[in-house]
């Protein structure tokens, strides 16, 4: 078996999270592959990355363009599909949503084609919560920390379940703790995820109060962080104790996971976290969905692409979604999508009139800014199947069908130069809804809304239903037994889940994994044009056995 293993170039990596783990591909059949951790120097490979090999050669892979008609699905070739899409758009503008978790060159090429095409506009899509978090982080001026730099920190603030978002970031924290058992680890997580179990100081923050709790911690640490409504030391003693514990740190690592549906104040969280880290000589590690979120944000802004909030508000345009699962990510119901390109079916392709094949990120080489801190030239794990285009190639095909001539793609340090962003307006959160409140938490098993990794056999075998974490008191009150199947419903929509009674979870809060597109519908995203952001708020749910 060792003989069948093939060492890749050093740059072959999983890019589903900022860790960017090295991978080894192993042939397990004539046309099937498996992903293993490298034979030497392996530093982890989470279930998302382990599923990559299987997903690359998945039996349900979309390999041909399909036109959805009343009589059924009709297979067509790519150039004919491009011409039909342009024709179907008619007089409408074409709005192209490109998944941001692709190498920077893909974004630059797609943007160049859209700039040369008067009727087309490009929107580079990253998770809305991540976008707000990163905008705040950019405004803060803080340095970004890669995983291997965390071991040099002498204190940590963890916001959200960062160990689920990027399991590899735990290694540096534990290494530091092993060297000095007094290392303060502050956790702010209303959903009491895995990272909170390792905290020396757990801040008791209520639903949607991450920004307020962080402001209180920063104030107690002697860092100026004004936020209207921030609690006084007497109101949040756990934050005061945490702030005092980190006050003496010379290099503070602040690690944030902006989980879906948690808060409307991720921009404030990013800004405060960056200011706190910078004031205490450290840096910020944003655990985004996908390794390249910060680069995608920077490239998108510098190339003049349309922000997500503006793009989603434009319902008159013809929408073409390339990569990702736009509807699943937003928790939206099926609605008018002209064309969708994906490697494997998802909620967006199911709603589209034209379905196109697409190369996975793991099949593209190019520049990736891992966690915002390390620029890496990533090699593809495998080449895409014959005839399967990349996102930029699909945009090019569409533009050519509209008679556009090849443009010159932008070059230069698009991804590495920090954006010039104004600090966020000082606004706190609204009132928390009535209990039981549904929060979402990231999982090591699923990437994003799970559109891709949900096709993995391990994910399907181990989690046929999403797990609903519920406190012991709430479970007793609702007569819900541990491991029982329950219905979780809100606003007329429901999802089945398996109850997990959790001793650490505060009463009045239940938690579903954010990597379940069906669950996201319970707290679907709203376009808040006035605030300039796309937000998903915590909602009250009904839970029945």
């Amino acid at each position, binding site marked *: *078996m*060792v003989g069948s*293993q093939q060492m890749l170039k050093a740059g072959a990596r999983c890019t589903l999270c900022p*860790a960017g*783990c090295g991978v080894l591909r*192993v042939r397990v059949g004539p046309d099937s592959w*498996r*992903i*293993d*951790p*490298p*034979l*030497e120097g*392996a*530093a*982890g*490979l*989470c*279930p998302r990355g*382990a*599923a990559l*090999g*299987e997903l690359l050669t998945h039996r349900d892979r979309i390999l041909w363009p399909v036109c959805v008609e009343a009589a059924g699905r009709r297979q067509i070739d790519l150039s004919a599909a491009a011409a039909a899409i342009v024709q179907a758009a008619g007089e409408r503008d074409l709005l192209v949503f490109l998944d941001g978790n692709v190498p920077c060159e893909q974004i630059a090429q797609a943007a160049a084609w859209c700039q040369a095409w008067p009727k087309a506009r490009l929107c580079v899509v990253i998770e809305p919560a991540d976008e707000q978090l990163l905008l705040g982080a950019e405004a803060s001026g803080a340095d970004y920390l890669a995983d291997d730099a965390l071991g040099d920190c002498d204190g940590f603030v963890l916001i959200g379940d960062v*160990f*689920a978002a990027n*399991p*590899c970031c*735990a*290694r540096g924290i*534990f*290494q530091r703790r092993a060297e000095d058992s007094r290392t303060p680890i502050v956790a702010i997580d209303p959903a009491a995820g*895995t*990272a909170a*179990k*390792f905290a020396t100081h757990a801040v008791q923050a209520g639903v949607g109060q991450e920004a307020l709790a962080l402001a209180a911690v920063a104030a107690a640490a002697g860092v100026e962080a004004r936020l209207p409504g921030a609690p006084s030391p007497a109101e949040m003693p756990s934050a005061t104790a945490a702030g005092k514990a980190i006050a003496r740190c010379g290099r503070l690592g602040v690690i944030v996971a902006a989980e879906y549906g948690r808060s409307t104040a991720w921009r404030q969280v990013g800004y405060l976290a960056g200011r706190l880290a910078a004031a205490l000589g450290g840096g910020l590690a944003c655990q985004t969905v996908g390794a390249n979120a910060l680069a995608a944000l920077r490239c998108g802004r510098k190339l003049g692409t349309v922000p997500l909030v503006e793009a989603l508000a434009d319902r008159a345009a013809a929408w073409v979604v390339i990569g990702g699962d736009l509807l699943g990510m937003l928790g939206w119901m099926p609605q008018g999508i002209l064309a969708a390109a994906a490697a494997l079916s998802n909620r967006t392709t199911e709603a589209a009139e034209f379905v196109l094949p697409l190369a996975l990120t793991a099949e593209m080489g190019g520049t990736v800014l891992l966690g915002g801190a390390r620029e890496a030239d990533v090699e593809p794990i495998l080449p895409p199947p014959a005839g399967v285009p990349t996102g930029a190639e699909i945009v090019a095909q569409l533009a050519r069908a509209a008679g556009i001539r090849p443009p010159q793609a932008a070059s230069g340090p698009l991804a590495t130069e920090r954006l010039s962003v104004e600090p966020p307006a000082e606004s706190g959160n609204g009132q928390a809804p009535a209990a039981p409140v549904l929060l979402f938490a990231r999982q*090591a*098993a699923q990437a994003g809304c799970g559109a891709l990794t949900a096709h993995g*056999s*391990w994910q399907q*075998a*181990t*989690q*046929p239903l999403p797990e609903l974490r519920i406190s012991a008191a709430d479970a007793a009150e609702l007569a819900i037994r541990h*491991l029982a199947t329950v219905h979780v419903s809100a606003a007329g929509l429901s999802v089945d889940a398996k109850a997990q009674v959790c*001793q*650490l979870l505060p009463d009045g809060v239940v938690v579903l994994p954010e990597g379940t597109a069906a669950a996201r519908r319970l707290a679907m995203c709203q376009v808040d044009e006035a605030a300039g952001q796309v937000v998903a708020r915590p909602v009250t749910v009904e839970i029945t056995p």
Partner: protein
Amino acid sequence: MSEVMEKRVLVDLDRCIECRSCAAACFHSHAGFPAVSFARAGWALLPMICRQCKAAACVDACPAEAMTRDANGVVRRGLFRCIGCGSCARACPFGVIPNELGGTPAGCRSPQGLTGHQVAKCDLCEDRTAGVPDAVPRCVAACPSGALQFADEHEAEKQHLQVVGGRSTADHLFKRR
């Protein structure tokens, strides 16, 4: 006695973040039969990995002689002999041979298995580690937090890791009379 014989997969309970990377790596490399099971202990979800006992109860309990010890001292399950009866899982004093995965019997679940009834058993990834001095089993290589280590008992002592119960390989307690 080879080096592989002496090394075991050890779990540092202070580092496990419940990400299940070990189980996923094992699942994908063993045709859908992960030999890593989990046990909930209070707040924690702990990976349960075979200790490769020197006096292995699973070998004694197997009625089909599917469980055998190979030349390297690794207790293995014979693919074509295992009938999925679960005797080994019940005999294992440490409860590390999984007989359930996701609520269904593991032996009946894999779409890729050669037969419908088999029990998963850790083989220390000998296909990966044989002939590669520094290679470690996949579960250890996949562990992102450093909770899993491939070490002998002396190395564990050097790292101040306390082996639960004072033993890692059951070479005395479960020895045959």
